[in-house]
Structures are given as C-alpha cells and as structure tokens.
C-alpha cells in the first residue's frame, strides 16, 4: 500500500511537471482571455476605446433588441433542420456502405471528401453554384422544367436559408456517416441471421437490431455537430452575409457585426456569454458520454486495464 501511494505521488508529480507547458499555455491564452472577456461584457468597451463598467446594460440591450432575438430564432431553425438532415442522410450513407461490395473502401474515401475540404472552399463553391448570373443551379432547374425564371437564391428569404442549409448538410453528412458506419461494423451478423430465421423483414431488423445499436453514436455525433452548427459563422457570412433583411442572420453573424462592424466589443461578447450555458450543458452531456471512466461498457474496462 505504501509503495502504491508513493508511486501515485511520483506519477502525479511527473504528470503535472511534463504537462506544465500545456497547462501554462491554456491558462494564459484560453482561461485568462475568457475571464477577461466575461468582465468586458459588463463594460462599454469599443475597438480602440476605453472600457467603463456598465453593469448588465449590454445584456438588457440585447434581450430587447429584436435583431438579436431574430438571430437566435434563425440559429435554432438552422441548427434543428441541418442536424436532422445530417442524422438521416448520415445513417442512410452508413447503411449503404455497410454492405460488402467491390470498391467499397474507395467509395467510402470519396464520400468523405466533402468533410475533408476546407470549409471556405465549400462555401465559395456553393456561392458560385447558386449565383444568379452564370450559376449552374438555375440552369439545371430550368432545363428539367422545375422553374422558368432564374431564381435569386441569396436575395429571397426562404431560398437563402435553403442555400446555407445545403452547404452545411453537404459538408457535415460524411462525419455522421463515417461515425455511424464504424459502429455498424461492430454489430455481429448472427443477430441478423437469427432475426431473419424468426421471419423479421428488413424494416423490422433495422428498427429492432440496428437502431438500438447505433443510437448512442448518432446522439454523440448529433451533439458534437450541434455545438459546431450553433457556432457556424463563415458558411452564413460568406454565402448570404445574414441577408436578405436578416433572414439568415445567425447568432455568430450578429455577434460579429456587433463587435467588429459596430465596434461594440462588450456587447459582442455578451452574445457569446448568453450562449455559454447552452454550450456548457451540451459539453457536459458529451463529456459524460465520451469519458470512458464513467460508462460501464467493455471499452471502458479495456481503457482502465491499460492505464498503469
């Protein structure tokens, strides 16, 4: 016992000593600026200006600002729709790739490409595709007879929202697909064979065998993707700029405009601080699922056994 506790003390000393650079870095460049930022959200700091304490004024202004409320509604709408679509498409993509066929690995690699591309590239590509002059989307829709006049994608409220949804879903689906596929491949064939013998059809097999197995990984991917989607900035800023008339202005575009265009840094941070509880809730839910010590699964036991 004594030897064991001495070893623990040694390990502890070593672990913190060797990680000192990381700890110092995160304390100085992450923890400190966040705390400072939260303080600044209680001031009237502007770019280049001095900060004076104003209490909760930034927050009161925000909650009374219809533009802010609208940006929150837009963010919710955008997030719920895109996460739903990415979940469905990702599951279907994973199921299709879980069938053994020639060239499967190549297909999987090719289907991952949208996720690996730099987002800025993806965004400009869609902006060009939906461009009202020379854009190929209008041309294709006209040639199959769905529309007879060119659509102004970025200038029409519903259509502008549709373009940012398409850009986000196109790039985000492979993340769901590959995560779900990894789980699908661990499901034993014997389950399906037994179910087939019992006369279960394909749909029943999916509902009663596949879905319960992949439920966790879908939820995990959805939560991570939700954090990223609420956080979305460049897809919206570079495609629609939040327009027309603010119909696609999501939270981050609002905060960017407030902080960097109107130069009200304090109020810009207040936008992020108001969103912080949601992020913290999501992150702590995720932490509970992702940290192996807390789940009683096989993986966790393996993880524990391996740690000295």
């Amino acid at each position: 016992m004594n030897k064991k506790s001495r070893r623990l003390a040694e390990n502890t000393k070593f672990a913190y000593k060797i990680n000192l650079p990381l700890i110092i870095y995160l304390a100085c460049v992450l923890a400190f600026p966040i705390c400072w930022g939260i303080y600044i959200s209680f001031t009237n700091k502007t770019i280049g200006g001095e900060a004076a304490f104003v209490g909760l004024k930034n927050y009161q202004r925000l909650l009374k600002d219809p533009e802010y409320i609208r940006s929150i509604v837009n963010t919710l709408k955008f997030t719920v729709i895109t996460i739903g679509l990415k979940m469905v498409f990702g599951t279907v993509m994973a199921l299709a790739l879980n069938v053994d066929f020639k060239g499967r690995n190549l297909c999987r690699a090719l289907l991952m490409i949208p996720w690996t591309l730099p987002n800025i590239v993806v965004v400009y590509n869609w902006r060009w595709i939906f461009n009202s002059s020379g854009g190929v989307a209008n041309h294709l829709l006209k040639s199959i007879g769905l529309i007879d006049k060119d659509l102004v994608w970025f200038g029409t409220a519903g259509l502008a929202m549709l373009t940012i949804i398409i850009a986000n879903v196109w790039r985000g689906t492979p993340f769901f697909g590959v995560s779900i596929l990894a789980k699908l491949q661990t499901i034993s064939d014997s389950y399906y064979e037994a179910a087939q013998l019992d006369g279960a059809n394909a749909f029943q097999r999916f509902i009663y065998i596949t879905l319960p197995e992949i439920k966790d990984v879908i939820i995990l991917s959805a939560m991570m993707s939700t954090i990223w989607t609420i956080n979305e900035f460049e897809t919206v800023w570079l495609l629609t700029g939040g327009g027309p008339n603010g119909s696609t202005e999501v939270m981050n575009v609002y905060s960017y405009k407030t902080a960097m265009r109107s130069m009200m840094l304090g109020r810009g941070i207040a936008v992020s601080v108001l969103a912080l509880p949601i992020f913290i809730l999501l992150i702590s839910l995720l932490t509970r699922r992702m940290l192996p010590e807390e789940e009683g699964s096989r993986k966790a036991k393996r993880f524990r056994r391996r740690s000295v």
Partner: protein
Amino acid sequence: MKGKVRRKILHRIFIAICLFIALAPIYWMLNTSLKSEAEIYLKVPTMWPKAPTLEAYRYLLTETNFLNGIKNSLIVAGFVSLFSIFVAYPAAYVLARMTFKGKRFFSKTVLFTYLLPTSVLYIPLYIFVAKLGLTNTIWGIMLIYPTFTLPYVAWILIPHIASISTALEEAAYIDGCSKFQTMYRIIFPLALPGIISTTIFAFAMCWGEYLYALVNLVSKEVQTFPLILSGLIFGDMPPWNQLMAGAILASVPILVIYLLASSSLVGGATAGGVKE
C-alpha cells in the same frame, strides 16, 4: 433470388447517387477553374470547358497575393501543428498510461476545451492579441490557433497511445529507463502513425481557418489564403474562375494527404472529427 439481384442493383444505383451528390460540386469547381472569364458568364453554362485554359491559375498565381497567402497559411499551419504535437503529446501520454491525482479533472478539462467553440473565444482573443501588439501579424494567429489544436491533439492521441502494448514499457522500466525516456524513446516512435495522422488533421484545421484570421489580419501581406480568396470577390461579377482555381489549389494538398492516408485515417482518427 430475383429479389436479391434487384436489391443489389438498387443498392449500386443508390451508391452512385451518393457519389454524384458528393463529387458533382467538386467537378463544377474544377470545370469553372479551367474556363475563361467570358465563358463563365455565358447564358447557358457549359458542362465541359469549351476552350480549357489555365489562364485563371496563371492570373491567380502571378497577379494576386494568393501565393503569398498560401505561404502564410503553410507557415502558420505547419508551425502550429508541430508545436501542438510536442506540447500535447505528454498530456495524451499521461492520460492514456498513468494513474495520478486529478486525472479525471485533467481529462475533463482537455475534452471541455476541445469542444469549446470559437464563437465564445474570438472577441476575447482579439482583445488579447491586440493588447500584446500582435494584431495584423501572423504571430497573433499563431498564438491563437493552439487554443483549438492543443486540446484536439491531446484528446485524439489518447486511444492511439492506449492501444500500444504495455509490455515494452515494463521492460524499459526494468532496464532502468526513466519515465521521461520511456515516454519519448519507447512510446513516441510506436505511436508515430497516430501522431502523424493527428498532425495532419491539426494542420488541416489551421489551413482553412477563417474567423480568427478575418478578425486579426488586415493587410494583404500577412493574410492567409482564405482571406485572399474572399478578397477576390468585389463588384457584381467576381472572377469565379480565379476563385475556383484558388479553391482547387487550396484543396489539393489536403486531398492528396487524405487519400494517401485514408486507410489509416478513416477509422479511429476521424471518429473525433475535425472541429469546424
């Protein structure tokens, strides 16, 4: 039997549709980049460049700051990803291999910072960098980027290190290796495949980063390629062929690395994903 064949055909058709959706936009990017300025604004877009030309690439590389932007992005992403590996590797190592006081809190902090989105951070970090006098220098964003790459690298490396057999370590310990030596001379080389793929992902995260760069970099000389690309958009008729040429050039390095390494990358490393 007949039903099986039909299902097989339907499945292949479905895969083909998926591939089309994933790749057609990328083809359009390539197609546009090979067109002349006159051809991109034709009334009816051509599905195949009528007169393929590298003019857009030539203009982009010689008449704009694009090459300089690529150079800046390379410096920033290269420096930050290497720095992150060396600073975050010890964290992944102790989390995968050791029991120590506060381990749970430590791993929680790493995961928390990994998931913390940039929107919460960009204004405070903008003020921080400004106070240090580093606004509008690549040093400023080189200081900022590790805030997302460090936790990412630490978190993603844990399973890679945990999957290495402990036998070698025990042998090294008996031979009188110190913890430090074991960590760097025994485990580091064994974890190298995972370390390389993680470095690549960290590189990719910095490579296309937009928001931090947008807020901090103003002058053309210090801007990274995403800002140079968006700088090409002006007026009603931006030069889309040049923009798409830039998009292709910026994607190629990432795609090449990815396709070469896809067999080892598709599994574990992507499970955590690349933070957007």
